[in-house]
């Protein structure tokens, strides 16, 4: 097998990484109506969770680290906070996968909720380290809820990609 055909046959395994990075960027785009910008869905987290649940072999540690660092850079958060959240999400989800088989959308939604909670709690804790007084908890809550509500769109789109990758 030549190098070219080797790359060609394996390039599809980069789709989960690129999808998660692309959706992370879309999260900071003007996708929300005026006045609701601060609770835009965390599409990158939803996408990463989807791939960890369905194909943990592809969404490995390296990809999770890349997504974490990239998220920190584009979101402007403390470098390492999104990375820590991403790693924690992967650890928690891979532990849970043995107990509950991820087949239907409800399981996926459950895993996504867990991931969003981990992500937002870590962000909240690190933000609290800087600023103990001024935290609006409602924004965290609503961002989590909006992300859960929007996530079926991301799930169905990525199920299509999953089929393409696995076929």
């Amino acid at each position, binding site marked *: 097998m030549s190098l070219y055909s080797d790359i060609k046959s394996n390039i599809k395994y980069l789709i989960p990484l690129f999808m998660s990075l*692309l959706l992370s*960027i*879309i*999260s*900071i*785009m*003007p*996708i929300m109506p*005026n*006045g609701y*910008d*601060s*609770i*835009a869905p965390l599409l990158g987290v939803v996408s990463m969770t989807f791939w960890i649940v*369905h*194909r*943990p*072999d592809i969404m*490995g*540690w390296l990809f*999770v*680290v890349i997504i*974490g*660092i*990239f998220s*920190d*850079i*584009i*979101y*402007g*958060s*403390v*470098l*390492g*906070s999104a*990375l*820590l959240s991403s*790693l924690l999400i992967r650890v928690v989800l*891979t532990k849970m*996968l*043995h107990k509950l*088989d*991820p*087949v239907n959308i409800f399981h996926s939604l459950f895993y996504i909720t867990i991931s969003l909670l981990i992500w*937002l709690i870590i*962000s909240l804790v*690190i*933000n609290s380290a*800087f*600023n103990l*007084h*001024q*935290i*609006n908890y409602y*924004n*965290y809550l609503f*961002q989590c809820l909006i992300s859960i509500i929007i996530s079926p769109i991301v799930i169905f789109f990525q*199920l299509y990609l*999953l*089929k393409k990758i696995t076929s």
Partner: protein
Amino acid sequence: MAGISNLKRVQAIIRERTSNNKLITILSFLLAFFILLASFVYPNINYSIKVKLLDYSTSIISSIYSPINTINNSLRNFYYIINVHNINKKLVLENESYKNISNELLILKTKTDEYRDLLNISNTIKYKFVTSKIISRSNLSYTKSVILMSGSNEDINHGSPVIFNNVLLGYINEVGKTSSRLITITDGMVKVPSIIIEKNLKIIISGNNDKYLEILNPNELSPIKEGDKVFTSGDGNKYPENLFIGTIRKKINGDIIVEPPIDINSLNYVYILDWSLKSRGIDIKADPIFYD
């Protein structure tokens, strides 16, 4: 969904393969803790990494932002077209009142200039600015910042105040070569020394990662009333004085907050001020707290 259930067996095998990577797990977490710790202990190193990578990502972010922003703006314009009659009615009324204010301001300006000449007061500082394009939105609940399409190539400095029509929006937090990050005044980490000019009352305004700003010295709030205008005081030299910050509002529970006049997400361009000592004509050694 049927196709997905067929994958169950494949998934189970895959999961078995990926679950026993304890060493990689530990190493990944050590890396995360190391980077996080370095953010606090060696902020300069992490800052350089962030800025470099942000520069590389800018072109991708910008190319995605443009079409999405065009669609968003088109939708907003569509709303304006539908409501053009009502909006026009409101604007005509506003315009009438502004005409009266404009005449009063002209008289006031002439008088102020006369007093300045009589008292021999030196001219106020005039600053240069760079107009910069916004290429991201402040969409997160835990941080309020946007990416700008200008960097050190256009003489942008770390800490430069960012304004729009004399309204303070925030300051430059990260500067790359071709891009920079504006941290807005609504971010929880930003504090602005301010003044309510009509009452000569100095207050400190802080963001709380929400649309509104909070006042940090609430013991001195008794003379404040709803509708009072808050401006930058210029204390600390981080921001120029007399930039508009917002209007005092009262919440239903009685809490006093400040409402900024502009939502950063409704803007496409901002002005980055050249607030360096040199550009302001200051050649003496300044307070190291702010200029180190």
